[in-house]
């Protein structure tokens, strides 16, 4: 085991890792950041999505050592400085974009990356942007509404069209 150092949610952190330690294990076990979930462990479901240097990736399919020195952001880094919910999180709450909540960390991280790249996505762009995130509860409609609302668009009006 060697110590692997990276920046997580703005803080420099270090924890032991083997070559085969996945980024998600490093976050959950090494750093105790259990907000990032493991659903499938085979890059299908998207529960494990975090940002690495600003881009959404599936942390179950990245070795921690591969991103040594990178800037990583997880769901724990998405709230506002005063602890209130961030814009995307709040929109998921307001529009019932979650039920059991298992997929939500990954949904929120994917949404944040999508909106950073495309601040006013169409409904079709939202659906394409979320294709790597699977939710077995909501049926997706409320998630799509939440994403549109987080982008400042009138989700209900778009849905009614």
């Amino acid at each position: 085991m060697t110590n692997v150092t990276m920046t997580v949610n703005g803080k420099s952190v270090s924890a032991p890792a083997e070559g085969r330690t996945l980024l998600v294990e490093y976050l959950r076990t090494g750093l105790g950041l259990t907000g990032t979930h493991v659903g499938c462990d085979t890059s299908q479901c998207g529960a494990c999505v975090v940002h690495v240097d600003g881009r959404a990736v599936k942390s179950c399919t990245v070795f921690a050592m591969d991103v040594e020195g990178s800037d990583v952001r997880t769901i724990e880094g998405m709230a506002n400085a005063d602890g209130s919910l961030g814009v995307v999180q709040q929109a998921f709450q307001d529009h019932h974009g979650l039920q059991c909540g298992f997929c939500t960390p990954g949904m929120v991280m994917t949404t944040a990356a999508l909106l950073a790249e495309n601040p006013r996505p169409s409904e079709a762009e939202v659906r394409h942007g979320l294709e790597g995130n699977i939710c077995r509860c909501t049926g997706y409609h409320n998630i799509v509404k939440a994403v549109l609302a987080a982008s400042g668009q009138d989700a209900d009006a778009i849905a009614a069209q």
Partner: protein
Amino acid sequence: MKPFAYHRAQSLRDIPDGATIIAGGTNLLDLMKHEIATPNTLVDISHLDLNRIEPEADGLRIGALVRNSDLAADPVIRRDYPVLSRALLAGASGQLRNMATTGGNLMQRTRCPYFYDLRTQCNKRAPGTGCAAMGGVIRNHAIFGASPDCVATYPGDMAVALSALGAEVEIAGPDPRRVPVADFHLLPGNTPHVETRLRPGEIITAVILPAPVTGEQRYRKVRDRASFAFALVSVAAVITMVDGRITRAALACGGVAAKPWRDPECEAALVGREPSDALFEQAASLMLRSASSQEGNAFKIPLLRRTLIATLRDATGLEPAP
């Protein structure tokens, strides 16, 4: 996953003999979790300086480490090689395309379920053991170029577009050379474990695109669900027309063979002709004359026929098929 020694390569020369290369890791990591790949030494090349898209002759040089998402979004690619951008965006998901690289995408392994199931026979995974797909569940298997030893397909989308565009793979190693993408993947024969022209100790450094072709480019992918699934069949088409006649046609089919499948006779039959349904039926029949199937994948023959015709109608401005 079996433990291994991890090494971050500092240069192309810094790759020990016998080591396994990892780039984006989106395919290799799964194979390692399943213990289909069990490298002793893993060399991470993802930090090497091979991530640029630059002009080369009249075309472009795409570094082997350019991420699929960056390649798909590149303005020159979108303008001059839109079929490549479409094919990339039709594959995997955003988070995977953010990691996946050009070289790794070309080298991705088959999605044959028996290849993934260590309890079954597979000549690709364990040469000489047999092929459990023969007489097994064979929905996503090849209809062209299969052998009694292997019916697996190459599953990727990007290479199908690259093949139709006439791109080349740049290989570094003791014998540096370029190989057309259309010749890069090998049919199984009796050595299905040898999948490409890349030899041990070699590495892909770039993909070279020729000068852009004027005309229409299309990528049509048919899959079991609307997103995030591999192709059952796909078609990349690059079609040039002058005065209502087809003057150049390149067609590559995905999901149907161990390589993007092209048929020079089918392409030649289109040249010099005006687009029509009769012509496209004839072209599809030429393409499919060498197809063979088992019960489980017989649906791919009519599916490819329809997909090919629809793509040709669309690319040549006949009404899109209803």
